């Protein structure tokens, strides 16, 4: 029996008169990879922002492992196990690659600030564990060699990887990837597909991703949800979605009869 990691129940997000997401209900099972797709402005990132606590849904509920997380702050939600990457990369640009990952370990730190400042034995122990964990992650992501570089100086592809490394460092149960393949060429996108699959296996993670690269989405996803103008218009396996008329219409437009 699989367990639902994430459950969104009748969530609606309204900005003034604009309904960005309307009555969205969806779920993700343990270690599933689910994709959220739809044309630009369909409300995908808004849905992400509701799950991660950036927005509080106007109505409806969000559950993480059956626990109600609706309206919690982003840092509280991350602590409970949801990590994310950003569509437009948001690294700590002036800090080193290593520091970027270490910062993501800060939430698991038990030492108080005086303990950290005075370098008490327990803090030094924790700091050592943090660094070991970060080293493992950076090696896994192929970023170990550049650990001393400033994040801003990395090439684009590596910045995307660093964002994922940083998200993984928070020890999530659910990883949200917002357009991880944006701006990548087909070869890089293939490599990313393999990486995401491997991350799921290695870290036993559940993954929700927003993506426009359909090759990647169809390759990797167990199930797909399709949003259009804030409404859920279809859901199902990649094969079902590919042959769904409503989805094709949303993406390509309705063909008008010749006059």
């Amino acid at each position, binding site marked *: 029996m699989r367990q639902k990691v994430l459950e969104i129940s009748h969530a609606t997000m309204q900005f003034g008169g604009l309904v960005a997401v309307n009555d969205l209900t969806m779920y993700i099972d343990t270690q599933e990879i689910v994709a959220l797709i739809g044309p630009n402005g369909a409300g995908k990132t808004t849905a992400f922002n509701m799950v991660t606590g950036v927005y509080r849904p106007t109505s409806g509920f969000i559950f993480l492992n059956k626990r109600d997380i609706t309206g919690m702050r982003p*840092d509280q939600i991350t602590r409970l196990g949801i990590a994310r990457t*950003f569509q437009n990369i948001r690294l700590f640009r002036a800090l080193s690659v290593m520091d970027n990952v*270490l910062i993501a370990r800060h*939430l698991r730190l038990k030492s108080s600030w005086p303990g950290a400042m005075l370098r008490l034995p327990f803090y030094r122990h924790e700091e050592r564990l943090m660094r070991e964990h970060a080293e493992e992650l950076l090696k896994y992501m192929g970023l170990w060699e550049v650990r001393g570089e400033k994040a801003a100086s990395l090439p684009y592809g590596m910045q995307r990887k660093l964002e994922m490394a940083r998200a993984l460092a928070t020890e999530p149960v659910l990883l949200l990837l917002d357009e991880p393949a944006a701006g990548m060429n087909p070869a890089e996108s293939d490599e990313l597909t393999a990486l995401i699959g491997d991350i799921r296996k290695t870290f036993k993670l559940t993954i929700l991703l927003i993506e426009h690269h359909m090759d990647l989405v169809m390759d990797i996803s167990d199930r797909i949800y399709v949003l259009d103008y804030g409404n859920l218009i279809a859901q199902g396996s990649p094969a079902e979605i590919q042959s769904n008329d409503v989805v094709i219409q949303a993406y390509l437009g309705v063909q008008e009869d010749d006059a």
Partner: protein
Amino acid sequence: MKQKKIVSLGLSILLLALLAAGLLAVEGSGNNYMLRIVRLCAINIVLALSMNLINGFTGLFSLGQAGFMAIGAYTTALLTIPVAKKQMIFMIAPLIPPLDTLTLPFGVTLLIGGLIAAALAFLVGLPCLRLRGDYLAIATLGFSEIIRVLITNAQSLTNGAQGLKSIPGNATLWWCYGVAAVLLLLMGLLVSSSYGRALKAVREDEIAAEAMGISLFKHKMLAFMLSAFIAGVGGGLLAAYNGTIGPDMFRVTQTYNVLMIVVMGGMGSITGSVLAAFLVTVGQEWLRVLDGPMDLGFFQTSGIAGLRMVVFSGLLLVVILFFRNGLMGTREFSWSAILGRLKRPVGPGGRVTKP
């Protein structure tokens, strides 16, 4: 690698020894003018540290420094002025008990001043730290002015506009540099710890920091309160250094003076703040020559008061124009960087090759 570390450590010890020897020489020289300037350098280091923590490391534009300094200064003053003197100072309205009969050791009063400033920072931070950028600056600026107005009007606590005098001159060379050294060390340890990294993360990108599980409010509050604590201690030192204090000392100009040091040294660089504190303090005194009568041969003046500030502003402009990030940026002073520069191979034509 290990050898490098030993060399760096050796050089640092040498530098500190030179500094200590310099301080001893200044103290022994009996030159009171120089002694005052050298002490003021240390006080300015403390004040710059305080402002750098919140503005440089945490990236919050706070302008409440003068207010927190005032709290520290008045605390130290009220708790160290001898009881007999207090009765003479408070002529219009007597000082409220138990302060009228209470005196404490200098070090304790510095600590209490810092703690009161930090407690106040907590109250101010509750509403203000939800604001961002310019709004926070305006709110903290307003707070600082409120403190000043309160001090001006709380006659039986602060002696109002008459201010306080006869503050014992406890801020000796060793007190000033001792306090500065301890705070420098603690601050260096804090910003290089996991908490320091979290503060820098807040500075770099609040949204990303929050998504990494860092509680913005908690960490901003931590930086704000620690900054206020250090400002309170610095204010206490300043009170003992000056001997007299009044509400006018803690106008916004005071905040800007400290801000100038921090910007000049580099927002987010501790060693930059130290360097700039010396440069600005000594520079302002050294430029005093310009205020006096001058005879340049073709041009004679009988002294233009304030000319030094004109020149000083010009120099500051040059720093901002050509070293946008201050002298050090967010970097810290390190021997290996300097040694690396010295050892850099000389390219063809005797030109130093870029790394």
